[in-house]
């Protein structure tokens, strides 16, 4: 059989878990460790940490978070953000990550994918593609969290990344990220038709039914989820979260919710998928 993976995605900025819209306007949601532990104990198939400002500041500061996570969480951990060299990959893996996710450095130097997959095995190298739909309907890849235009068409890039040895692709719809408007099915299908490596879809999940449809029609191998899970965790843990955070915590304190997103749990999602004949690990 083949099971579909549910992967909480934790965007990290400094010591905080953050979440934006269109990868921008980052709000502090809490401590990544609290969320990671909760997701591990509640059925997450993997975890995905993305240092959302690493590439921008050309730094790589997640290692202590990774090693603390690896001591208590025994599911796979993918780490992205600011990975530019073979030495960077080595250091993240040695801190306890299982896979690394690369965007900017791979676009700047596609051969990096080849070199990295030769050194660490294809299955360790995940390529992130941040896609923005253009006025003419085509999708272009961006770097630095949707900030930098590259002019590269996403389907071509996905195919090339696979040929160079990438073991997995995470496709993010920057347009849908954090909006709860639903997955961009046109984008997902564009990529899933062209690649034969696992495809993780990310950006826009609104509820269980939207996730099930995206998996079935988009032929995805995994789903990366952020807002939909994080807001549920916050609703249930709000008192313990407030007061501990630095940065922009206005959202956290306001108790506001997102009208378009129906917060839910991994368990609820998995039960829904199971009922809809999608194989998952229960």
């Amino acid at each position, binding site marked *: 059989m083949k099971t579909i993976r549910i992967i909480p995605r934790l965007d990290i900025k400094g010591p905080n878990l953050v979440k934006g819209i269109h990868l921008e306007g980052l709000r502090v949601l809490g401590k990544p460790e609290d969320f990671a532990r909760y997701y591990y104990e509640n059925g997450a198939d993997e975890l995905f940490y993305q240092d959302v400002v690493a590439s921008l500041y050309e730094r790589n500061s997640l290692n202590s978070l990774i090693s603390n996570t690896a001591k208590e969480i*025994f599911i796979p951990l993918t780490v992205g953000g600011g990975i530019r060299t073979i030495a960077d990959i080595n250091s993240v893996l040695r801190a306890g990550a299982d896979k690394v996710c690369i965007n900017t450095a791979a676009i700047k130097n596609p051969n990096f994918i080849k070199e990295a997959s*030769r050194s660490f095995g294809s299955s360790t190298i995940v390529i992130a593609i941040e896609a923005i739909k253009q006025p003419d309907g085509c999708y272009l890849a961006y770097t630095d969290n949707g900030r930098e235009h590259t002019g590269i068409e996403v389907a071509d890039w996905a195919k090339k990344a696979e040929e160079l040895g990438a073991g997995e692709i995470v496709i993010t719809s920057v347009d849908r990220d954090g909006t709860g408007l639903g997955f961009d099915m046109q984008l997902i299908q564009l990529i899933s038709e062209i690649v*034969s490596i696992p495809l993780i879809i990310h950006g826009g999940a609104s509820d269980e039914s939207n996730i099930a449809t995206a998996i079935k029609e988009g032929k995805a191998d995994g789903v990366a989820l952020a807002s939909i899970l994080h807001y549920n965790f916050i609703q249930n843990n709000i008192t313990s979260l407030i007061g501990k955070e630095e940065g922009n915590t206005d959202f956290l304190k306001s108790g506001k919710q997102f009208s378009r997103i129906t917060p839910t749990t991994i368990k609820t999602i998995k039960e829904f998928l199971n009922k809809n004949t999608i194989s998952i690990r229960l």
Partner: protein
Amino acid sequence: MKNNNDIVIIDYQLGNLFSVKHACVKVGLNPIITSDKKDILKASILILPGVGAFGDAMENLKRLDLVSPLKDKVKMGIPLFGICLGLQLLFEESEEHGTNKGLGLIPGTVKKIPFSIENRKIKVPNTGWNTIYNKNVSEWNNSPLNSLDQNSYMYFVHSYYAKPANANDILTLTNYDGLEYCSSIKKDNICAFQFHPEKSGKNGLEIYNNIKIAFQ
């Protein structure tokens, strides 16, 4: 209990060793991570982990002069546990990036997962959770899987799979999207898993715990 320093995770400078160590620590083992053959020669339990490319791994083992110490220890009957690439390295050869010779401790070869089965495309690498099973209950019960249920979920990430020459060496099978393959092996004092017990949540930690119990 053996002296904790005797449990050795072999570091051949590839991949994620620390999650193996953390899983050991979680169940109360305290292994050392080492590339030093002197430590390996003193070991009473060896763990050969691995993420990475087969050829590079063999090159590193040779460069670090660990091939003979490892083989000698296995001949002496010291338990050896392989994980992922650590399972594949035990075989005679692999077709990863050309043909590369392995340690040759288990008869058989390592093959690439095909891109299609009966004209149906399958995804490679195999990344994700899948079940392990064995119709022979006594083999299962006589292994570190003994406390687990048949069809327990484990986490896999690999593009190649081992094909043992002797069916007797197969401990479990897994079916990935139509490809049934050997997902763990057991032969004398060698036991190895294609999946990552240290990444397989509570099920995986149980395997480490069973290893601990077996050698207490």
